[in-house]
């Protein structure tokens, strides 16, 4: 099997992955996006920037993360399962990879303030962390409903010195927080940098965030080469909310024969159930009604509770280079417990979507006996304990 010739290495200059992406923002934000684009290109080409980021990722945030062989679960399933351990990153998920990159970029651009949207609070905590580390004021927008559900992460953000602004509009969840953060950015572009939490938003964000997250895939590629006789895994799987951990992981394996699988939440599956649309500055697959009103997704995993998905994934899906599947809440909860008992790792509900798919795919034969599977465990489950406790 050879990989289809899909080039998602970078989008077109106007930020297109095929038909997706672009920059659908108010005129007031276009120059700001342009500036981010120029600054990112310059920074990314600047060895000094790269090495500073590297130093922080390594000396502060905990990179590289191990690629852990899941010995007991592998034996139970009759496959070789390798876990890319983003759950070990500082603040508890892969989100910090991206945030540190963007915060350094913001600093390089002379910005003194970071803003971000957050749903579960993981991206908000990561942004607050980067703000504290670099001495930048941080404001995080969060839907009032999420603030109530995720009190712990709200407190973490505030402890880190960030301001958390409740959003009372719409469904009072992640999509509304994102909308509100964009509105706020319009009023503050001069000193403020908008730090998107996934491969979403207007160009250059989807591409830039993917680049900041590709460290997952690049590391995993090298680790898999050392761990596997074949050098590359048969299957690479990651959960997809906005799609940043998946995009970062896939980036390391696009040019290999590995099958790429993105796992969406049944109740928030923009790729599996969505249609073409424009939201939060980019064109992609979106959950919406026939007129284009955005739907409210539902997932037990707050980080997957988003009605859109990064444009690169829509592109990879169209070209068949990656396949997108869904699992439901019940499978996800079972997967958390199964992994915890087999390997001593309590993963995030988001990450458990990838685990749940593997568990199912082994029984359906989609993953053949003896196959090698590399799975990105995007985060740890501490934040989800209250949710799981309510279920038991």
């Amino acid at each position, binding site marked *: 099997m050879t990989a289809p010739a899909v080039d998602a290495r970078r989008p077109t200059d106007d930020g297109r992955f095929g038909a997706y992406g672009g920059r*659908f923002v108010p005129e007031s*934000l*276009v120059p700001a996006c342009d500036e981010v684009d120029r600054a990112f290109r310059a920074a990314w080409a600047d060895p000094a920037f790269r090495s500073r980021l590297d130093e922080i990722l390594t000396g502060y945030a905990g990179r590289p993360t191990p690629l852990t062989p899941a010995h007991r679960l592998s034996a139970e399933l009759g496959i070789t399962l390798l876990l890319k351990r983003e759950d070990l990153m500082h603040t508890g998920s892969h989100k910090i990879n991206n945030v540190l990159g963007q915060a350094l970029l913001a600093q390089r651009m002379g910005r003194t303030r970071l803003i971000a949207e957050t749903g579960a609070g993981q991206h908000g905590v990561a942004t607050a962390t980067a703000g504290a580390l670099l001495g930048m004021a941080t404001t995080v927008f969060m839907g009032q409903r999420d603030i109530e559900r995720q009190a712990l992460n709200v407190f973490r953000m505030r402890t880190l010195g960030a301001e958390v602004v409740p959003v009372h509009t719409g469904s009072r969840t992640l999509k509304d927080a994102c909308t509100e953060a964009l*509105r706020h950015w319009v009023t503050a572009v001069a000193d403020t940098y908008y730090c998107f939490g996934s491969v979403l938003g207007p160009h250059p964000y989807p591409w830039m965030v993917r680049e900041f997250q590709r460290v997952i895939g690049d590391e995993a590629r090298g680790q898999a080469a050392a761990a596997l006789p074949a050098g590359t895994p048969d299957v690479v799987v990651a959960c997809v909310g906005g799609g940043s951990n998946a995009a970062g992981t896939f980036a390391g394996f696009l040019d290999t024969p590995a099958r790429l699988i993105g796992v969406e939440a049944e109740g928030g599956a923009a790729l599996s159930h969505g249609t073409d649309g424009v939201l939060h500055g980019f064109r992609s697959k979106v959950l919406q009604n026939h007129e284009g009103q955005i739907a409210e997704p539902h997932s037990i995993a707050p980080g997957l509770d988003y009605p859109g998905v990064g444009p690169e994934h829509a592109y990879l899906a169209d070209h068949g280079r990656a396949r997108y599947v869904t699992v439901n809440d019940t499978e996800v909860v079972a997967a958390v417990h199964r992994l915890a008992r087999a390997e001593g790792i309590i993963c995030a509900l988001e990450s458990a979507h990838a685990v749940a798919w593997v568990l199912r795919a082994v029984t359906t034969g989609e993953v053949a006996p003896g196959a090698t599977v590399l799975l990105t465990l995007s985060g740890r489950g501490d934040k989800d304990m209250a949710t799981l406790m309510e279920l038991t």
Partner: protein
Amino acid sequence: MNPLETHTRRVRDRGRKLLVPYLTGGLGAGWTDHVLAAAEAGADVVEIGLPFSDPMLDGPTIQRASDAALAAGATVDGILADVARIDPGVPMAAMTYANLVFRRGADRFCAALRDAGIAGLIVPDVPVDEVEPLSRAAAAEQLDLVLLVSPATPAERRVEIVKRGSGFVYTVSLMGTTGERPALPESAGALATALKQLTDLPVLLGFGVSSAAAARAAAEHADGVIVGSAVMRKVLAGATPAEAGGFLATLREALDRPDD
């Protein structure tokens, strides 16, 4: 030249400052009475908002209006059907977000507007760089596609925008969302003046024009004003068409008598 621009130019050339109120479509059963009353109060164009679930450029008042309309079951089709039944005597322009346009397809969307008797379209999250397919679709239906210039827009880019836009130039008075403000910033007038030097299109100022005084100040530099939240706050508070029209009449008055 399309009907909307023909009209806006004619009004401007007559020396009259344009008054363009914004009204959220589908907000309440008799919402089109507000359109008629606005025209009667002296509006030169009526901007009709097609509510979207995630209005990224709108402040609290218009957000609330959109949410209320959607909660009451407003749809694009319903609003356009309502519009098709009225004739305010002045052109109407639709204001909405990209997703409602692209979901239907730009061609079909523009055709539907035209069928309903709408003459212009404003889509604030489709900047000039992304405007190509929509421009073509609008042109095919003889709709004017109004583009926005912001205080942040660099000089070269202004040229591009006024070239690609039609109907009028929507000058955003400040870096912010829609919503009432105590006064327009100084810079707004300067921006309008600069734009007038770049184009022969009527140049209107919008965002934050909330009072007769602000309208009068804006008209010193621009060819007219767009007024949204100030009207919608009254409508949301239960103002009748006559009452909302009364408010607009004070703006009309201020625009017509700049020296009072």
